[in-house]
């Protein structure tokens, strides 16, 4: 299984085409994009701010994908997570998984997102109001 993980800013538009080596074997490609909504805790916002413990986040994502790959046999998984300021309407996270059949790719994407929100050290550390000023945050 090919695993690619990118954490940073300006990565979200680097979606990659199906690797040529996998053409012929891959019958299903499933993508999920998590978009920043316009409200946080009921207040209108213009952006969210993300922080990561990057080396551990990348390692944890890889471990999760390898574990999930035992149940959802995929040929490739590519994950991108933005950090820093992400405006409303833009993608904070993107995952694409390819497999022989759709059940594995769907399972990988859904289960990965659940695990991301449990174990991957990435945090929403703040939000900006519609004037671009930081909103008070509570842990």
């Amino acid at each position, binding site marked *: 299984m090919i695993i690619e993980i990118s954490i940073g800013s300006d990565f979200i538009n680097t979606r990659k085409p199906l690797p040529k080596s996998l053409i012929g074997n891959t019958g299903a490609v499933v993508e999920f994009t*998590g978009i920043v909504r316009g409200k946080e805790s009921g207040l209108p916002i213009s952006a969210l701010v*993300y*922080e*990561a*413990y990057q*080396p*551990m*986040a990348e*390692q*944890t994502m890889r471990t999760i994908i390898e574990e999930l790959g035992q149940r959802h046999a995929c040929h490739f998984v590519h994950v991108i*997570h933005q950090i820093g300021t992400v405006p409303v309407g833009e993608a*904070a*996270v993107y995952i694409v998984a390819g497999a022989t059949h759709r059940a594995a790719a769907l399972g990988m994407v859904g289960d990965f*997102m659940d695990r*991301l*929100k*449990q*174990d*991957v*050290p*990435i*945090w*929403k*550390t703040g939000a900006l109001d519609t004037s671009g000023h930081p909103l008070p*945050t509570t*842990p």
Partner: protein
Amino acid sequence: MRILFFAHLKKAAGCASAEIHFSGEIDAEMLWQRLLSDYPDLAQYRASVRFARNNTYAITGTRFSDTDEVALIPPVSGG
């Protein structure tokens, strides 16, 4: 040992990272006692914080040495 603080724990600790030193190995309870002595405002978050030792979550029985990098991981909120 290098200690890393993330998200709201930075404010509680007053810094993003710190160095502490000791001899031999210590367990999680001993590490907490040392951290709470130096950063008492962390106490309110202790129940929800996990230790990570060298990029991997610590588990029951994990021992920590002076050369480790230890991160305090508050509840995550990515995605």
